[in-house]
């Protein structure tokens, strides 16, 4: 069996930031990701990020990804792509289905001293009549098609959901040369940032709040959808139906944390609606209810790349400290800085809810860790 000091599942912003911090402090780090490229969501995000200018805001997600990979390499982080963490056993034995260069897979067990789970989130689906027709897909999938694979999903798109994902992907679909016929949102208000919504309005996209898709029709693939207005009880109002012609429908109805590995290892979970579902309990070091197993990023509650990154850093610093690579004072200084930035990111009308939700989770952490 192989040995590594720190094994990290997921090479998104959380996993990479954790890897960089732990390796910078001197730990031997392996990151495992099931994709063909490390970076998680970052390489799909061709737009400039929000955040504090002191921390790479105004830089495009994909460029943050490139910078992080260079940094990880500089500190000697080992990255296995095409490889999935499929098991987590007692005493921190990590089972990996490792992708080999010849396309084969092999099963590898690694004895880790510390494990960090940063497996991100997955898209929610919405069901309506005809939702299985070809051409209907997740917004994240459409974003991967245009920004990573450079393939247009179609010509005319109807987007469902007005959170930041729905707004940003609508914009990027137009940048890729598609037309967005309409953005449909069931709630009475736009969920994401006004500035993102304004961008697509200037490009002529109507936003229908208090509306939903009733039905999608088509023979080989979707060719039109019926939308209708919703009353205050979220019921369609008869007579308000509109038919929109389209060949693609993209669903941006939120994300939920991926907690398979967390469940496998019996970490305590808690349900948190703000964060998108069941999330592992953790303390301010991002350590779960099992000592030496850390969690970070969207896995601990769906937020943003910059919060994922800072949480990743916290877990990396904490793991390095626990391994003896940082003194308590050194670690405290680093962690205090990170928490200050995290608090800044969780402010304002959009962030506040997440600050309260995070505080609930921290307060819920069992006093004596198993």
């Amino acid at each position: 069996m192989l040995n590594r000091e720190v094994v990290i599942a997921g090479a998104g912003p959380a996993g990479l930031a954790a890897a960089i911090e732990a390796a910078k402090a001197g730990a031997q780090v392996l990151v495992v990701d099931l994709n063909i490229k490390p970076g998680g969501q970052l390489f799909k995000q061709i737009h400039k990020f929000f955040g504090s200018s002191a921390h790479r805001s105004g830089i495009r997600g994909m460029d943050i990804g490139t910078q992080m990979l260079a940094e990880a390499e500089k500190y000697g982080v080992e990255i296995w792509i095409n490889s999935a963490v499929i098991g987590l056993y007692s005493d921190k034995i990590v089972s990996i289905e490792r992708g080999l260069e010849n396309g084969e897979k092999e099963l590898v067990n690694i004895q880790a001293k510390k494990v960090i789970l940063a497996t991100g989130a997955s898209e929610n689906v919405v069901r309506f009549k005809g939702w299985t027709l070809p051409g209907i897909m997740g917004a994240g999938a459409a974003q991967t098609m245009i920004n990573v694979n450079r393939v247009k999903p179609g010509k005319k798109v109807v987007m469902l959901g007005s959170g930041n994902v729905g707004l940003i992907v609508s914009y990027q679909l137009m940048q890729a040369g598609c037309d967005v016929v309409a953005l449909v949102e069931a709630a009475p208000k736009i969920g994401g940032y006004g500035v993102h919504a304004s961008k697509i309005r200037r490009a002529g996209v109507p936003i229908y709040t208090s509306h939903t898709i009733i039905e999608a029709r088509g023979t080989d693939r979707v060719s039109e959808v019926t939308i209708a207005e919703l009353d205050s009880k979220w019921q369609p109002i008869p007579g308000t139906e509109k038919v929109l012609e389209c060949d693609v429908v993209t669903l941006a109805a939120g994300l939920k944390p991926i907690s398979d590995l967390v469940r496998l290892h019996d970490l305590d979970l808690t349900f948190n609606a703000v964060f998108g579902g069941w999330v592992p309990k953790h303390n301010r070091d991002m350590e779960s209810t099992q000592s030496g197993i850390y969690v970070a990023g969207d896995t601990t509650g769906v937020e943003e790349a910059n919060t994922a990154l800072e949480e990743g850093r916290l877990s990396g610093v904490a793991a390095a400290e626990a391994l003896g690579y940082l003194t308590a004072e050194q670690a405290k200084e680093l962690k205090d800085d990170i928490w200050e930035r995290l608090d800044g990111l969780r402010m304002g009308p959009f962030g506040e809810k997440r600050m309260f939700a995070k505080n609930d989770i921290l307060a819920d952490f069992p006093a004596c860790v198993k």
Partner: protein
Amino acid sequence: MALDQNGVITREELINFKQIVSDERYKKGPVAVIECIQEIPCNPCEAACAQGAIKIGMPITELPILDEDLCTGCSICIAKCPGLAIFMVDKTYSDTQALISFPYEYTPLPEKDEIVSAVSREGVVMSEAKVIKVMNPKSFDRTPVVTIAVPKEMADDIRSMKRK
């Protein structure tokens, strides 16, 4: 209707959030117009302005406030704003026309002297407009800034051009 209902910022909202440039300042030449009224965690505009004309402060969710006397209308901040929420308006361009500069991240880019369709915050075509300048230096990091000449009376309404 308001920004969070249909994505279009209203004049009332801009007034409430103190993001209207004064008529006196407009008379002095080009000036940045910031349309960012929600407390989001974002501040690159503050760092972008070498004149120190944009203030956000701490925490970073504070709204950007423009000191219109410090602003030279240089347009650097336009490309640095990830929300594409900053424009430049020059109401002194000619007797009948004003200049509007806006971020434009679509292809193909318009060319200088081309006639394009100027659009409002709703994406409604307001008038034809001549392209005066297209700036796309490396420092703008792939957010080109387009400047068009529009009828002066539409300077508070036109904010972009129709996608080609």
